[in-house]
């Protein structure tokens, strides 16, 4: 049976999009150093989502990457691609204002990973892989329709039974875009200690909220 005989006819929006940015390829040591500085700016306040040998700059929004001049070429390149997905693929209302609300960098060294989470009401979450060592761990997203499929037997006990978690292979420069409500996590970094995976995360929002006090994220 050739694949071409049955064609996909889904009229529903695709959830995960991927493109590639070449601007981080050169001088990876410089980018790693910049990211280290942003993480140091948290004063040691890590995110509870980071497990093992991992840290996040999510608490350091004063020096969020999208506010720094050094990342401007990336964000200038990114924005039309964000619009392409939001308007053409997801059919978002173009009369509403969308903006980058927050951004941060994460590193995962050997044994490190980011736990399962969503980005709440963010219209789009964007994961950009600044560095990606061998066996640095891929992105995983949870099928939001998994509860429908659960009524049937899938996979086989002799094989790895398919769970709702699906792997998206990523390489340095890859940019993954998905709705903020999509549950995701990273695989554990199983590469060489000292070779960090650096990920730049960006949220696109169209609403604001205020925090009461300065509670933990």
């Amino acid at each position: 049976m050739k694949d071409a005989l049955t064609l996909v006819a889904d009229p529903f929006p695709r959830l995960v999009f991927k493109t590639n940015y070449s601007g981080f390829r050169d001088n990876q040591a410089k980018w790693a150093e910049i990211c280290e500085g942003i993480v140091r700016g948290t004063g040691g306040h890590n995110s509870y989502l980071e497990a093992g040998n991992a840290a996040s700059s999510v608490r350091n929004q004063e020096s969020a990457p999208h506010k720094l001049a050094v990342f401007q070429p990336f964000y200038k390149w990114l924005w039309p691609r964000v619009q392409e997905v939001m308007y053409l693929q997801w059919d978002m209302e173009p009369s509403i204002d969308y903006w980058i609300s927050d951004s941060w960098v994460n590193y995962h060294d050997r044994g490190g990973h980011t736990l399962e989470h969503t980005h709440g009401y963010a219209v789009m979450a964007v994961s950009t892989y600044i560095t990606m060592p061998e066996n640095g761990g891929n992105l995983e997203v949870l099928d939001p329709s998994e509860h429908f499929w659960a009524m049937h037997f899938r996979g086989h006990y002799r094989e790895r039974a398919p769970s709702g978690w699906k792997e998206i292979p990523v390489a340095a420069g890859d940019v993954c875009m998905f709705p903020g409500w999509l549950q995701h996590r990273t695989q554990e970094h199983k590469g060489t200690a000292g070779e960090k995976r650096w990920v730049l995360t960006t949220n696109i929002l169209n609403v604001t909220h205020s925090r009461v006090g300065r509670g933990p994220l």
Partner: protein
Amino acid sequence: MTVFNAPKSASPFPNLIMRTHYPHFDPQRLVPICEGLVRGARENAYLEQGDANSSVINTQSMPHTLAVFAPFYEWLWPHIEHVIYREWKMDRSVKYWINDSWVNRHGPGGQTTEHTHGHAVMAISAYIQVPKDSGAIEFMDPLEHMWRMYYRNHRPGTWDRIGVSAGDILMFPGWLDHRTEVSRAEPGLDRWVLTTNVFCHRMERAASKWMDPYVTSPGYPKVEWGKR
């Protein structure tokens, strides 16, 4: 607006609706047979509205059990397996079979209203005859509730339309909400659709009044535990 190196879909989730085409339906031969199947149903299905009929009640003469449809089902089965095993990653050690099938007729003004096929692994719509303007099939995005937090041009509650032609075959999970558009074909022109359910679970009905809408049933059938 399309940018260089535009983002491409990287969704790793199963595709829900698959389409193929069977070029050998002969409406001149099949429509009289379909009319006979509908006549054999003692009542219509409550999902059919307007000028519409279904043979779904006629379980004595289901299309997949008739010799005249055998070439179609022989052609169809590898396509079913392809989608079930390769697209949806279903367990190969479980038995799958065609459980039931029926035909629907939609004259001008006729339609099938919103429904699912319950625990069917796959529902298949095969279009035997599709006159001009006789309506498309429509699906509800099962993730629509997730998108509702945003403002979209695709308004909440909007159905997604898939246009169909004679010979088109659509395969989708039984749990996916769908319906047909109202036929706006010329008078005397009927759309004929052959529907097939693929099962892996066996179900038995306790009531003699098969397919009665639950809301209008005089009462729930008495459950006798342990009796099969």
